[in-house]
């Protein structure tokens, strides 16, 4: 694709992307005005866009329009969300902030209930059951897996789970005249767990580097494509 194949919008967009990318890369030589300018632009654009999305997707279609289009008893039902929303503005004034407390409490309560319920039902119980099922011989045979290898794999996972949890167990029983420390077997288990945790952190670090590398490749590729289109145009 050459420069002449690009539209005006594409050209301006490509030029802006090229300039802003170079400004971000200027952080290699340290903090500077160009980097901070780009930072402020990104934050401002993001905030403006989010405000537009919220207004366009939530406030108007779900809050204001139902009130304007409702009549009779529907107006009372549709006006309740708007009324409670307005009560939240009372939090801005300390004298009347108590008016917004019930609404805020309702929001926090619903959010906490959803989060806790989902964590228990969606993560804790299924993961505990999955760890137990690693030693389900019927399931292993059903999946046509090697039973011995499956049991070894399950044992490693079980050991990693228990030892990692043991690493974060800091409860000790105080004994008079003795050094306060965990029992020897707990120390040993914690050391094993520490090994599993180190491996996990190393894997996460590799993933972070891979993600950052992909982002860098995407930006450099975009720059080279833009430069190539400019060169090809002339």
């Amino acid at each position, binding site marked *: 694709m050459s420069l002449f194949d690009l539209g005006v919008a594409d050209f301006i967009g490509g030029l802006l992307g090229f300039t802003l990318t170079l400004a971000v890369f200027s952080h*290699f*030589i*340290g903090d500077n005005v160009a980097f901070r300018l780009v930072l402020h632009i990104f934050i401002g654009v*993001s905030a403006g*866009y*989010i405000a537009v*999305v*919220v207004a*366009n*997707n*939530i406030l108007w*279609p779900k809050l204001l329009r139902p009130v304007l289009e409702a009549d009779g008893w529907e107006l009372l039902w549709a006006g309740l969300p708007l009324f409670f929303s307005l009560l939240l503005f009372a939090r801005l004034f300390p004298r009347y902030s108590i008016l917004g407390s019930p609404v805020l409490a309702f929001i926090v309560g*619903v*959010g906490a*209930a*959803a*989060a806790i319920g*989902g*964590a228990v*039902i*969606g*993560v804790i119980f*299924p*993961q505990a*059951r*999955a760890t137990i*099922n*690693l030693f*389900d011989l019927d*399931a292993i045979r059903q999946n046509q897996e090697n039973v011995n290898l499956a049991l070894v794999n399950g044992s490693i996972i079980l050991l990693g789970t228990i030892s990692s949890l043991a690493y974060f167990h800091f409860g000790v029983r105080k004994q008079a005249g003795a050094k306060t420390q965990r029992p020897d077997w707990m120390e040993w288990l914690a050391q094993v767990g520490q090994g599993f945790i180190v491996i*996990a952190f190393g*894997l*996460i670090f*590799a*993933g*972070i*580097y*891979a*993600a950052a*590398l*992909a*982002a*860098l*490749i*995407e*930006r*450099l*590729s975009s720059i*080279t494509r833009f430069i190539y289109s400019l060169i090809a145009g002339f």
Partner: protein
Amino acid sequence: MEIVSCPFCGKENPPESETCQYCQARLIPLKINPASQPDSIGQPPEEESPAKSNKDQVPESQDGLQAAGEMNRSEAAPVSDASDWLSGFRNQINTQDLSSQPVAQDDGPRPEIRDIHPDIESGTMQNDSIRSLLFTDAGQKEEQPPENSVIGPQDVERTGDTAADDLAWLRELQSQYQQVESLSSAGSKKDEDWSAANELSQDSQKREDDVVPSWVDEIYAGPRDEKEAESDLGLSPAELPAWLDATRHSGTHQDIFSIPSDYGGQVEIAGPLAGLPGILPAEPEIALGRKAAAYPAQLQVTETNRVQAEIFDQVLQSEGQNQPIPDRGLVTSQKVMRMAFAIIIIFAILVPVFSLQTLERYPPIAPVAVLTASQIISSIGNESPVLVAVEYEPGFSGELDAALAAVLDHLMIQEAFLVFISSNPTGPLQAEHIVTVSNQVGSHQYVNTEGQIEYINLGFIPGGPAGLRNFAENPRLSNPSDISGEPAWQNPVMMTVDDINDFSLVIVASENQDKSRAWIEQAGTLLANTPLIYIVSAQSEPLIRPFFDATPRQVQGIVSGVIGSVQYGTTIGRQGIAQLYWPSFNSGLLAAAILIVIGGGANALLVLNAIKNGRKKGGN
């Protein structure tokens, strides 16, 4: 410098002043210091006689001239006591060789009354001085032990004479005691003692009458009979009721008007009462305008505690202070190293791009997670509704666009009906972007126009986990319209969807582990037969993997980052954005691996060198 304020006038005075230089009020309260009391007549000032040391053992009534007078009137003191102290004194006299050291015993620091009388008669002394000395002497008389009382009569008789020889009185004293001893040996010692005491008392009384006011004498005289006093005035005694008589003070005048012993020997030196002894101090000591005593507020701490306290204090003080950023040079080792690493990695990325060479060696085998995802999507029928949750931030679009584009390419090949949703405000925009990218890469024509609707962008889900739960249970009510505001559920495909289970497939693309887990927690629990596939960043893949490895699986497939996208493209035989990134991605990973190895080796050498130097130092 300490300044003493006058308790009466309030004016300030120098600290060494005893009286106020403005109102003559006393600034220093009277305090009894027994050591500063004048010594008895004829007694060496620096040598405490046994008689004086026995002073506390004798009855208080015998202490001084007044006491002697009282005893004479009341005749209440036991005679045997007088014999004891007198015999003790006699023993002392016998053991001392008074004639051998007469000068040393008479080397007193102050004038005696017999030396002052000639001055009085000659008028060479000022009135105040005379009065002060006389009263001082009177006060001393009260403090004199009975031994001096015995000595007194002979000595007082000599007061009118100018003593040419100071030792003469001492010799007379010795002879006097020899006479007393001879009298005591004759068996009439008691009578002679009392007669001598009476003579001393009468003589002292006569001398006091010359200088002490009569009212003081009344106070000193002790209790008097009331009836006798009233009879002197010619008044008949009143008959008081019994109850009133019972309330009267049963003590004597001596009890009422007695001067406290602490002040009895002091003489007023200022004010209208100057010169009078036994004056109660008018000003309380507490009224002196001195600064309050400064008690030390320092804790008794050890040196270690003090150092730690200083460090803690410095830390607290430095909390509120802006620490200046140290000036760093333009070129530092850290900055050079950072730039060197950046240049190396950028060079490794750009070399495959400018060489225009494609790396055709892709991973031959796809992992189970990717293969399963590919198989599930391959089973998606035409016009099947597929929910795609775009939950990643724009900053991760470089990685996740490549991964999601490969999956969307496959879905577009399958002609699935795509429904985009996001709980991230920027998600709807990312969804529009990825559709455009997928159309470009895969040469598709997925559009959303009035005449042709092949995908719908439902926009943003507010409310976090609760909003996700609400959408999973009732998507129609949660997002009734699309991002452009048009009704979203009037499409024939969308009309078949009432809850999240009616979708043929749910795909979640996210780099955030919390967002990914929220979909599993809120929507995954409601999914019965609908598979759930994750398109995740490489950094969050280890945290999603347990949901795929679980039995039963909570996630049916995972496509992770650039590598997963390439593997997915391999399964369907398509090339997308990931394949374009693949050579640079491999070069970048290789460069990073080489830098890690070099850095680790260099660090190991530094550690070994440090250990070696440490051994050398230890060996030396």
